[in-house]
């Protein structure tokens, strides 16, 4: 966030600059409210933050690099299940289990991405969709390891060594830190040489190639970064809930994360967090509608897509003069 501050801070104050901060202020307000009020809003926000981790990754691949993947849930599942199995069946501690989980997911992302990223457009999308479905099937069928639909329970909470974060507020605080770090990283990537290469690939693969940008390599890099975030989210989920079953990483996760990305603002830095929070809390604000809850939620989503087609964060971006970026590469 400090880099954002540095890049958006103008020489003189303008009221429009506070608008640029609105997504952050709203996000901080929601998280702060949850922290103070306790109760199940904490649970909602904790899940939202885990999803934010997932969507930050998705945004790098889809927003920055303009590719499509319907299969990021596969990496969440790989890492989540690795975490779960290592900590329960083999009694590992949480941190190394997460590390191995994420590493395994990244390895899979490399093996999958290397051939498939040469595919274009809808071939890539279909390929990634297949990866998600296959992973789901494996988590159901490989029951000697995954326990199938029965799921794995008794997964220890997040923690370092003997210190375990079990309280709701503790988990919330830890996730806030993780999301801030990742958001900061994504902001840095956006303005780095790597990020410029992503945006060049997004703009026009041929134009990027003609400038000497190795398109396939950067697509792969983007895919792997994105998979790493998805994997981390998967592991965080299983340690926070203490349970994992195939449904957790099903198609539901893909739909939810896409909604978050588009509502929040694809390609923006604040979008994933804002989108994850809004989409997680929105249905709940309509809980009083009972059977019409989904209808109300759907209606609001449609309105959002009509009036903020580039997402909420982009809505505030519009009023902001272009970022000042240093001259050196």
């Amino acid at each position, binding site marked *: 966030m400090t880099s954002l501050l540095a890049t958006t801070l103008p020489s003189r104050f303008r009221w429009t600059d506070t608008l640029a901060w609105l997504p952050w202020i709203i996000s901080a307000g929601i998280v702060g*409210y949850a922290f103070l009020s306790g109760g*199940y809003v904490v*649970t909602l926000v904790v899940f939202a933050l885990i999803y934010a981790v997932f969507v930050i990754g998705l945004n790098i691949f889809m927003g920055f690099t303009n590719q499509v993947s319907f299969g990021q849930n596969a990496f969440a599942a790989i890492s989540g299940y690795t975490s779960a199995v290592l900590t329960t069946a083999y009694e590992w501690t949480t941190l190394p289990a997460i590390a191995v989980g994420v590493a395994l997911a990244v390895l899979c992302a490399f093996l999958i991405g290397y051939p498939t990223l040469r595919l274009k457009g809808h071939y890539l999308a279909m390929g990634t969709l297949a990866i998600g479905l296959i992973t789901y099937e494996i988590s159901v069928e490989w029951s000697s390891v995954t326990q199938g639909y029965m799921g794995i*329970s008794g997964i220890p909470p997040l923690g370092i060594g003997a210190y375990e974060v079990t309280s709701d507020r503790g988990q919330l605080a830890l996730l806030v830190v993780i999301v801030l770090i990742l958001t900061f990283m994504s902001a840095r990537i956006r303005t780095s040489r790597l990020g410029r290469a992503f945006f060049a690939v997004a703009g026009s693969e041929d134009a990027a190639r003609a400038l000497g940008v190795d398109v396939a390599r950067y697509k792969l890099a983007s895919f792997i970064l994105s998979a790493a975030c998805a994997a981390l989210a998967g592991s965080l989920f299983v340690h926070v*809930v*203490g349970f994992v079953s195939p449904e*957790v990483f099903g198609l539901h996760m893909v739909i939810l994360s896409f909604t978050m990305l588009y509502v929040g603002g694809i390609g923006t830095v604040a979008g994933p967090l804002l989108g994850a929070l809004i989409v997680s809390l929105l249905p709940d604000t309509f809980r009083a509608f009972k059977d019409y809850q989904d209808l109300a939620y759907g209606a609001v989503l449609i309105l959002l897509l009509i009036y903020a087609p580039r997402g909420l964060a982009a809505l505030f971006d519009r009023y902001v003069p272009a970022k000042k970026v240093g001259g050196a590469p």
Partner: protein
Amino acid sequence: MKYHLILSALTVGGLASLAGPAIAQEPFKIGISAGLTGYAATVDRAWRDGVELAAATINAKGGIKGRKVQIIVEDNRSEPQEAVTVYRKMLSSDGVGMFISGCVSAGNFAAAPILVRAEVPMVLCSILPQQPAQVKWAYTTLPPAGFEVETRLAYLKDKTQVRKIGVLHDPTPYANLQKTVAEKEAAKYGIEIVGIEQYKQDDADLSVQISKMNSAGAGAILKIGLGGTTLTAAKNIKQLGLNMLLLTSLEDLAVFRPVAEVLGDKFFFVASPSQVRDALPAGPLATEIDRFLAPWREKYGDRDPNWASRGWDGLMLTAAAIEKGGSFEGPKVRDAIEGLSGYQGTTGVYDFSPEVHQGLTINPFVLGTIVDGKVKVVQ
């Protein structure tokens, strides 16, 4: 109330403290986490209706120990993550002191650690969690997986010449458990399992699996699992022109009528007592079923009572335990249910103990068939 909470969260800082003053005799709040939407919708809606019917019956008589019961239902969308959220919501926002939750087992498992921490017990429609610490706070009305299998094996042994069978099951935990029991128990009935095939709930054709079992010599198929696949299996058997019996597991009777039209007297199904009330002799079981069925039929007519009757049992046995234990406190209720034995429910007699949290220990099931559109009990 949640609406206000979130609104104030969005506008930042608005306070919406709606905690009212404690009333002398507040209703006892019981939560249901149910998959009102998603794959469990049919079962869990029925379960909810059964619990609510029991609550209305209890309240009409003045409540439990003079305290009214209030049911709070939240839709978990048949997803574990949603289940965690709604459990938390009902615990922290609604002050629920007991759960009578539906059949989304993954959701109940995912929420189990929270209930352990909150010291709130739950009576379930689904199977029990796996962790001993979590089982301590969980009870189920679900009959042991073996019962449905044994009812069918016993019929084959006693009433037919079929000695070789195939098992056709879906990958759900309960179906897997039943399959395992079938493998273990078949020999006791002098029956050999010559093929075990798995299918998925959305499969549109099962003829490959069925042909395989038929060519292995199976004279009957034990189908384990819910939904439209039962009709698919029946049609496949007919299309293939096979002379095989189809014996399916417990299910909504509405699903079975078209199956019976396809297979006629070669189709059998496991039925719970409430589904075949008219074929039962008078006795405590029939009396309890009538107590449930009278208001049920008044409200829902011909709707299948199977899942709802277990929901009814869930709340009624909880009420009995609270009356006996004399307290609404979570740990006391938990202890009281553990001490509940010989309780006559609509599905059978529940005998709970510290070791047994799956209360139905005597097989209550019968085997039914449909002749000329009428349900008949064959064993």
